[in-house]
């Protein structure tokens, strides 16, 4: 088969030089443990190519004897002599013998809006790699992000160090970026995790703490940047298919259907790249029966990317994606009397038929981005960006349908300059205009116009960072609000480790939904509050990262966040009409103090990789109005994640464990039973050549639990994922 593919490739690739006989050398590059090594440089004569992420390479060379070398940072160079057959192909596999890959510091791009090494960031950053995503065989990106240290997803809402809690999908205190472009919904301010197909995400960077100095609104608790796959040279294809099933309820008393629910999906991607043009397109579909009654859904998505290396130092990038989902909405589960309860106090797998029967949501969302990057010199570069994000949802409910269409148009001009060898600065301007049209939000616009700058200066080995951003917020073309977000940070290498200190201010502009929602909840009118002000928070952090010998690396951070004017739905009496009403108001003052610890180690053998992460969180809602100080709702005090992966040649196995302590307080159904979350995932994988198979048993113990009251978390799910990469 390989030979046939190589011959096919030979037929497709133009010859090196007209009239000169050529042949193709192909094969795989692996390390001493048999793991594929991507991005290795294979050189023969005057030509060179790089291996793909599966370690495979293909190089066309003049026929005859050739001296081939393979190199990659962290490995000893390998060489081999061969004779290239004219008009034929030759397989040559390389193995980096005996060398241990040097652990390179990951390069990140989110924390400072420019490339930097991970240990040069002044705030904590967690990274989820495509290997992590592949190993965990997840279907949406939030499932992968949920495993990152200090991060927890509560029914789709992300919490970084307890930032958001659970606010029913309206307003996120975390900013989502896709390849650096803001993607929070224009109307509700929330995050659509299915905006980008999970198979197209190469890396996720999670910046913890206030990031408004560079990113403005919503970066109150942190920033999540989804970085999509790079476009390689040559033709590549990828097919990913998943199939799985959900465990039935552990008790017959909870049975709700007479079949076993399943899920499945298919993604197909192709890319082609030349030194000048590169492009990729992918499409996929997913179906699920759901693990609870009325929990199923269908989803399809497409994504396209293109790059034009217009000149030696100029790059133009275009990208777009569209996702469409129609999913059932189970709402809160059935309690006594609200369904065929079988004499039970609650039926976690059944829907409350008095309120939610038949509810479903149609949700479509997509984006277009265009970016021009120009490197002027070694000391200066700039980037210009334009983007359009569109969301469209309709909630079909027994009580009536709600829906809205929102657009966010954004532009940004950013420069990175090195005025001196020991100084680097990022400066830029950004504007975003959001509009919404819907029966519950009305017709409104919101503008955000900003200028920002942040400079890093080295003093010996120490690095001092200072920056600030000014945002002007407008609503419906008027009522300008100004917000200033400064940040200062210091990095001090000490011994083998590095200390980091930072203090920054973050804010979140109220979403159009929070300002203008007009609907009815619990039979009570929900009324607009156009006078809402931005939420604000100061974040402080002291962190330390250091290796422990050659086999372990640790990172610990103490953090303190002080928030004010936090927006909450509040039930009040209208002073004029004396009617009860629900309204979003700036009320809460909050303090979140905690400790974040992460440890990575390869104990005993290089084949075994382990990680442990623990977050302690003391989250308090400070006294305001007549409310005494109390716990902030939906913030577990302890959050622990453990993982271990063992790889032997082509096979591997792994385990993840997640513990999250019982919530001190929840804001809804406070008298419902609350328990800790203890979830064990088991994984196995096999990879050989272009084929990889991943088996995931998520929630292997079928632990039945909730984090948001009356919303059942996923039961045991067995999923098999097959990936073929060409």
């Amino acid at each position, binding site marked *: 088969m390989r030979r046939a593919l190589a011959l096919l490739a030979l037929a497709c690739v133009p010859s090196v030089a007209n009239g000169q006989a050529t042949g193709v050398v192909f094969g795989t590059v692996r390390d001493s443990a048999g793991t594929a090594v991507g991005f290795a440089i294979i050189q023969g004569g005057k030509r060179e190519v790089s291996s793909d992420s599966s370690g495979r390479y293909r190089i066309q060379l003049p026929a005859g004897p050739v001296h081939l070398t393979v190199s990659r940072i962290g490995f000893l160079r390998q060489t081999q002599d061969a004779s290239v057959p004219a008009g034929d192909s030759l397989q040559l596999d390389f193995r980096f013998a005996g060398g241990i890959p040097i652990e390179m510091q990951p390069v990140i791009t989110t924390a400072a809006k420019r490339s930097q090494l991970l240990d040069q960031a002044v705030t904590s950053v967690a990274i989820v790699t495509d290997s992590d995503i592949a190993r965990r065989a997840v279907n949406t990106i939030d499932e992968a992000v949920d495993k990152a240290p200090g991060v927890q997803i509560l029914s789709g809402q992300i919490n970084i160090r307890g930032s958001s809690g659970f606010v029913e999908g309206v307003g996120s205190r975390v900013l989502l970026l896709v390849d650096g472009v803001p993607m929070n919904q224009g109307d509700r301010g929330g995050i659509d995790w299915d905006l980008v197909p999970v198979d197209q995400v190469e890396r996720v960077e999670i910046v913890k703490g206030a990031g408004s100095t560079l990113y403005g609104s919503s970066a109150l608790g942190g920033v999540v940047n989804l970085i999509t796959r790079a476009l390689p040279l040559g033709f590549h294809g990828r097919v990913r298919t998943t199939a799985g099933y959900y465990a039935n309820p552990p*008790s017959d008393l909870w049975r709700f259907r007479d079949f076993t629910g399943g899920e499945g999906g298919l993604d197909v991607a192709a890319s082609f790249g030349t030194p000048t043009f590169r492009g990729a397109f992918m499409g996929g579909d997913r179906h699920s029966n759901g693990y609870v009654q009325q929990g199923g859904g269908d989803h399809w998505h497409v994504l396209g990317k293109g790059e034009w290396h217009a000149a030696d130092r100029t790059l133009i990038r275009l990208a777009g994606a569209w996702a469409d989902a129609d999913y059932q909405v189970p709402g809160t589960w059935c309690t006594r009397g609200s369904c065929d309860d079988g004499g039970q106090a*609650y039926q976690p797998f059944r829907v409350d038929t008095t309120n939610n029967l038949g509810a479903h949501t149609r949700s479509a969302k997509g984006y277009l981005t265009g970016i021009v990057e120009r490197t002027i010199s070694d000391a200066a570069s700039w980037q210009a960006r334009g983007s359009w994000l569109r969301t469209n949802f309709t909630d079909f409910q027994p009580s009536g349908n709600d829906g809205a269409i929102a657009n966010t148009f954004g532009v940004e001009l950013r420069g990175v300059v090195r005025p001196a060898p020991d100084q680097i600065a990022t400066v830029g301007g950004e504007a975003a205009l959001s509009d919404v049209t819907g029966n519950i939000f009305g017709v409104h616009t919101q503008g955000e116009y900003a200028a920002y700058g942040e400079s890093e200066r080295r003093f010996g080995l120490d690095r001092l960072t200072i920056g600030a951003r000014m945002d002007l917020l407008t609503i419906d073309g008027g009522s300008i609000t100004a917000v200033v977000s400064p940040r200062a940070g210091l990095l001090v290498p000490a011994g083998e480790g590095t200390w980091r200190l930072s203090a920054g201010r973050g804010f979140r502009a109220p979403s159009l939904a929070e300002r203008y929602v007009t609907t009815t909840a619990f039979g009570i*009118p929900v009324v607009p509050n156009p006078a809402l002000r931005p939420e604000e928070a100061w974040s402080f952090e002291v962190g330390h990262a250091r290796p422990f010998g050659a086999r372990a690396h640790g990172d610990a951070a103490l953090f303190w966040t002080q928030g004010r004017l936090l927006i909450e739905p509040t039930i009040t009496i209208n002073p004029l*009409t004396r009617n*009860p009403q629900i309204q979003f108001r700036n009320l809460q003052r909050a303090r979140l103090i905690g400790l974040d610890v992460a440890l990575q180690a390869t104990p005993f053998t290089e084949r075994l990789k382990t990680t442990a992460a623990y977050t302690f969180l003391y989250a308090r809602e400070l006294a305001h109005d007549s409310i005494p100080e109390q716990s902030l709702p939906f913030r577990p005090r302890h959050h622990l994640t453990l993982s271990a992966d063992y790889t032997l040649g082509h096979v591997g196995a792994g385990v993840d464990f997640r513990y999250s302590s019982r919530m001190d307080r929840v804001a*809804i159904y406070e008298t419902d039973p609350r328990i800790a979350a*203890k979830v*064990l995932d088991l994984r196995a994988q096999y990879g050989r050549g272009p084929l990889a198979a991943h088996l995931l048993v998520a929630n292997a113990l079928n632990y039945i639990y909730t984090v948001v009251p009356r919303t059942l978390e996923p039961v045991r799910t067995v999923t098999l994922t097959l990936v073929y990469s060409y």
Partner: protein
Amino acid sequence: MRTPSRGARATVLVLALLACNDGLHPVPAPTTCPQHFTGICGHVTFAGAIPDSTDAVYIVAYHTFPRSRDSLFTFQPGIAFLQALPLDSAATFYSVGLPTGRYEWVVAVWKKLGTLTTASADSLLREAGFYRDPADTTLPGVVNVYTQGTDSIDFVIDFAHMHPPCRYYNPPCP
């Protein structure tokens, strides 16, 4: 000191894993207040035909008897925490979480389909029954809520004899 055998270590591991599996389990519908619960519990018995225009029936409690429209919405628990009673049987057990304190009126409120305002309260809301003083069943019974649940707050909800809120105002509506 002997090193634990491989089997013993595996047993400990399995036991540790099983210890994790203490999640939610089926719980029969309660007949008394649950542990660590603050509020009132009891049985309500339904009488009369349920009107077709029924939106929901809630049980709420007032620290002070509401004698005016302004005090109509001073009940506990908060509106966001109201739970509709199941109406599919002749009687049902209920539990309502309440702050500790003294409550002069524990009342079942029938709500008609429609959006509630103070102005529409008299047309959309009805008193459908209330907890009565055991010594004089013509009077509302006072309920004291302590940190543990208060049981046996039993009464009848009669859909055939419901009254608008203004019946209890001072002065009452005609």
